[in-house]
């Protein structure tokens, strides 16, 4: 039975990235929230370690792969522990909110878990390339560069960044082989892990009941979407985790907040999927535009602090490709401006249909209606709006590159790729609709200026 060791190895990402739990911006968060942040940090460190070992010619093993993340994590954890922690509001919620979170959230996650285990929520992409890469990497104890160079392996999108195959290969090495039917369950981990961290971040701006209500909605919406878009075992769930946490952290920060968490989550996003790079660029631009509008101090330093970790992570992958004679960068769908405008009608009519998210579109509609009703100041929500609108615009742009009718590709990919856009919409709408300032917007002061700063704990 190799399912147990595989799942334990995947969960141990939270230990590999444990240092993140001691970062001043997270130390006063709940234990599950800190563990979730550590899991994301651990996945990023493990991916970098996997590439480094292969580049150095060292065969992968569980101790070898774990050593680098653990060393970095321990050093960072000790360093961060000495710095004063930032206060976080206590996580309290009334009975109705708590029971909805436990009931609706619990049922949603349980059914997502069952769908993943029962072979109802996984696409064949897992059998065609995601799982294939993980199994082969584990088998050769490293990134199988020879295979990535083999001309008859290009179907496996060899330019895709390596986080998911490396994380799954780590579990496969611990288990002895890749447990194909168990691996999809890891998608549940990413969705479930995001919930407590999102709730903690939302709580920085909302009261406990409201933060809990938005989190419950997010869990139910994303669980239904991950199931019906067949996102099991592929890169969608980790990408959703990384981008959602980054957006929530940026939406709830103040001018002095550390950007450690969103920056490292964006590093995770770019190492997970090509769309992660698109998302990271949109989020960074949205955050920078917000800083400019708010006239926040240290604009360049803070923007660089947000952009540097994802840029460094992406550079590491491109350098790795270059080092091994692979073509660095990502493969596009034809020339950048080689657009087929005869597909505009198909794209604009099929894309909205593909956004039903397993709920006949209700997951999109309710937050959208509440957001419009809240009439928020757009500036504060730019990181979320940039991701939501920008990602959908990018999808239109991408589908217009298809020479053939893109209808089938839209129905196949849009439900999955649009998930971070839905997540960002829910988070922005939740924060905007419960915004205590929106009823006294006659004031010329900005939203964030009237929210108490997140100060260091005594």
């Amino acid at each position: 039975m190799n399912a147990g060791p595989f799942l334990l190895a995947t969960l141990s990402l939270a230990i590999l990235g444990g240092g993140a739990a001691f970062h001043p911006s997270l130390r006063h968060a709940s234990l599950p929230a800190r563990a979730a942040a550590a899991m994301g940090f651990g996945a990023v460190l493990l991916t970098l370690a996997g590439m480094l070992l292969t580049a150095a010619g060292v065969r992968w093993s569980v101790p070898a792969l774990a050593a680098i993340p653990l060393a970095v994590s321990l050093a960072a954890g000790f360093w961060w522990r000495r710095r004063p922690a930032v206060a976080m509001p206590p996580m309290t919620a009334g009975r109705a909110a708590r029971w909805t979170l436990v009931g609706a959230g619990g049922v949603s996650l349980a059914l997502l878990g069952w769908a993943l285990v029962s072979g109802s929520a996984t696409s064949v992409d897992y059998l065609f390339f995601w799982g294939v890469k993980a199994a082969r990497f584990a088998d050769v104890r490293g990134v199988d560069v020879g295979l990535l160079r083999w001309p008859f392996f290009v179907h496996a999108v060899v330019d895709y960044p390596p986080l998911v195959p490396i994380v799954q290969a780590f579990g496969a090495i611990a288990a002895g082989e890749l447990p194909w039917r168990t691996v999809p369950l890891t998608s549940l981990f990413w969705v479930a892990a995001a919930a407590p961290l999102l709730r903690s971040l939302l709580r920085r701006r909302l009261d406990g009941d409201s933060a809990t209500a938005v989190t419950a909605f997010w869990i139910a919406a994303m669980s239904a979407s991950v199931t019906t878009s067949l996102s099991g075992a592929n890169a969608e769930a980790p990408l959703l985790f990384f981008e959602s946490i980054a957006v929530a952290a940026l939406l709830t920060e103040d001018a002095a907040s550390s950007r450690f968490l969103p920056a490292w989550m964006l590093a995770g996003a770019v190492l997970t999927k090509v769309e992660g790079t698109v998302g990271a660029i949109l989020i960074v631009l949205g955050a920078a535009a917000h800083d400019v509008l708010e006239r926040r101090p240290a604009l360049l330093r803070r923007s660089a602090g947000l952009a540097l970790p994802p840029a460094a992570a992406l550079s590491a992958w491109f350098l790795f490709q270059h080092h091994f004679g692979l073509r660095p960068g990502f493969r596009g769908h034809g020339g950048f401006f080689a657009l087929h405008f005869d597909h505009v009608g198909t794209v604009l009519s099929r894309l909205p249909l593909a956004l039903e998210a397993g709920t006949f579109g209700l997951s999109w509609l309710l937050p959208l209606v509440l957001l419009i009703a809240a009439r928020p100041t757009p500036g504060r929500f730019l990181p979320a709006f940039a991701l939501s609108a920008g990602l959908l615009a990018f999808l239109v742009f991408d589908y217009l590159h298809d020479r053939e009718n893109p209808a089938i590709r839209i129905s196949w990919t849009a439900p999955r790729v649009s998930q971070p856009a839905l997540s960002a919409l829910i988070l922005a709408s939740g924060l905007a609709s419960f915004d205590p300032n929106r009823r006294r917007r006659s004031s010329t002061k900005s939203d964030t200026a009237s929210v108490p700063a997140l100060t260091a704990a005594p």
Partner: protein
Amino acid sequence: MTRLRLAWLAGAAVLALFPLWRFFARPLREQLRLPLTPVDRVDGARARQWQFLEESRAHVPPKSSFTVLAEDPDVEMALYMMSYGVLLDTLPLPTRYYGNPTAYSGREAKYVLAFGLPEAPEPADRLRLVARVAGGAVYERKSPR
């Protein structure tokens, strides 16, 4: 409780009903059956092809090369892609790649995994039947090119 909070909480509860409805839309016995492959309930054809490869695995020795043959080029391509994951420590060589015949690769393979073909894909003096498995057969080439 404010009406707004109620809207979010009720929304969450309503959204949770969709997967619940889908779960109970099928007979419980069918829902609780454990799958044989990760795509049993979403793509039965690929699930059968995956099982064919899993059953073939025992008949292809480590370090050897093989090719996959099927009548439909799309099926052949799918089998080729999946074979990398099922038959580790072997070298899959495509006879057709996305439907296009490859120059020599497939013909150089030592083993032939024939899926859904009514008879042996090459004359008997060139192929030896190793095993019949669900969905097809495994052959060994007597003298691969």
